[in-house]
């Protein structure tokens, strides 16, 4: 590929520049589809979305219509939701429970394992037609889980999921360990779009540097709502988790519905929060319990899964359909055993910052969309700078730009590896 579309890096001089054409160029977008989205492990869904045998959800993954099912033997399947006969989408409902699915076009019926069960007018076909492997619903070439997080890869070969996740695995555990009964996706999905390149949201999701300026009104809201009694300053570190994944882990002024009480929630809930803290400490030890309770984490799992464990936990994917447009899906993740009181405050907390109606995400969107407009001048104003903290000694600060560099190093490696 054109060398001018690659990041310009000089580790010793602390230079890291990203060409803005990488956010607007159609050939780059097509290359990303092949080199990244056709190869990487991609998030499909969470086990809690299929609580019972027979349950299913449908969603798009890298543009493909997918059917995620749990059969009667509790086996999970990542099926390509496309009829092998003439290609219509088979299951057209968002979610539900069913042992079988009938294609509306010619009436073929498939089990939730993908197996073809009924072909209307079968006399027109050979006797063993139904057993033809090519007539079953296709499975994602690779499908695996890490804890309750399910991923697919559309590449037949490659490293296994745990290897791929590298250091991100332990951070997924830090989320899962918040419950002794299992974490659950809370009903209700935020489904929106941003008129910007998908990589802008990857960067923004783990950007600690922009909080003070982009989110000044949110930070002022926290002060108004909680008073000066809760004035923890933003402070922490950024970590390279390998394979393009990165995290920032830091202290912040917001309440966390996992053992970090704030005045906004009222005195009556304090004892419940203390009991959760005690349970965490008993199960996990003081150090890890304190880390889970008191610190926030924003993590990008390359290429497009964000798990932000902040004033609530959001699981977020974002899929490009063009260089300047992405579809975003965001869920709330919570301990299954959480009380009604705490669940309410968790969701109240989630919506104070996160999502299209929050006090912060709309301003992230504004930044992303204004960057995309700015990149129209990519020929004259050529580069982004993500060098902050490159020459800092003693670890990367939460508001440095290490996380973006991890992402871009991996992006560049995969784009180059893919060849012309």
């Amino acid at each position: 590929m054109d060398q001018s579309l690659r990041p310009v890096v000089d580790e010793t001089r602390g230079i890291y520049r990203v060409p803005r054409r990488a956010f607007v160029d159609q050939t780059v977008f097509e290359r990303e589809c092949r080199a990244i989205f056709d190869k990487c492990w991609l998030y499909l869904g969470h086990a809690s979305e299929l609580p019972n045998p027979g349950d299913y959800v449908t969603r798009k993954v890298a543009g493909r219509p997918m059917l995620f099912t749990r059969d009667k033997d509790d086996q999970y399947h990542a099926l390509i939701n496309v009829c092998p006969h003439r290609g219509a989408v088979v299951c057209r409902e968002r979610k539900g429970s069913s042992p079988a699915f009938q294609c509306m076009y010619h009436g073929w019926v498939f089990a939730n394992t993908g197996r073809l069960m009924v072909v209307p007018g079968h006399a027109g076909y050979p006797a063993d037609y139904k057993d033809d492997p090519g007539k079953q619903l296709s499975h994602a070439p690779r499908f695996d889980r890490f804890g309750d997080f399910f991923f697919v890869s559309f590449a037949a070969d490659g490293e296994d999921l745990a290897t791929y996740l590298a250091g991100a695995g332990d951070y997924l555990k830090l989320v899962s360990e918040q419950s002794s009964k299992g974490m659950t996706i809370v009903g209700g999905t935020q489904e929106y779009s941003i008129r910007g390149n998908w990589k802008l949201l990857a960067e923004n999701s783990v950007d600690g540097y922009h909080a003070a300026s982009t989110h000044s009104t949110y930070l002022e809201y926290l002060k108004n709502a909680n008073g000066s009694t809760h004035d923890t300053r933003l402070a922490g570190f950024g970590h390279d988790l390998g394979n393009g994944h990165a995290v920032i882990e830091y202290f912040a002024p917001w309440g966390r519905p996992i053992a970090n009480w704030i005045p906004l929630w009222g005195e009556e809930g304090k004892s419940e929060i203390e009991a959760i803290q005690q349970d965490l400490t008993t199960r996990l030890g003081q150090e890890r319990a304190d880390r889970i309770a008191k610190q926030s984490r924003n993590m990008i799992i390359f290429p497009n899964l964000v798990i932000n464990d902040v004033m609530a936990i959001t699981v977020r994917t974002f899929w490009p359909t063009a260089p300047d447009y992405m579809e975003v899906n965001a869920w709330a993740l919570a301990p299954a055993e959480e009380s009604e009181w705490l669940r309410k405050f968790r969701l109240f907390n989630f919506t104070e910052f996160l999502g299209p109606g929050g006090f912060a995400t709309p301003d992230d969107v504004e930044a992303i969309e204004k960057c995309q407009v700015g990149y129209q001048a990519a020929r004259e104003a050529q580069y982004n700078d993500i060098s902050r903290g490159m020459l800092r000694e003693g670890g990367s600060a939460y508001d440095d730009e290490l996380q973006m560099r991890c992402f871009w190093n991996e992006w560049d490696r995969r784009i180059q590896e893919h060849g012309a």
Partner: protein
Amino acid sequence: MTREAEIDAMLLQHRVQSFLFHEADLLDRWQLNEWEALFADEASYLVPPTDVDGDFADPSKSLFYIFDDRTRIHERVVRLEKKGAHSEFPRSKTRHLVSNVRATAQGDTIEATASFAVWRSKDGNTDIFVGHYSYRLVEIDGALRIAEKKCVLDMDALRPHARISILL
């Protein structure tokens, strides 16, 4: 229905409709403090997501787009009055169309529903929010006040929109 009951229903309809039109006008003129003053002391402003049944979903059990209590309604207005609310600075142009208003009085409260289409235009893009309102209104000192305003989006998803940074 007796003639007297019909006249009562007409007066209620007129009163609620005038109130909703007044609210829409305040929003389109960005008179946010006046808008906030339409709410009762205990009030909520809700926008459910599009993949649940918005008429029945509970914001303490499902993730919503907007789950504001009275304090946060105030804070939302405070925020929107600042230049730091970047998404709405400079402010977008909006137009709220409110129709199909229906109202019934039950004791001290009035339940009202209406259809809405809200256009938001800014920076070369125009997004349309389509849905229906569900209001719980109360009378305080002779004036109608909002105890709950729920905006149920009759949309497949919030796309191509990116935000509900305006007030619906």
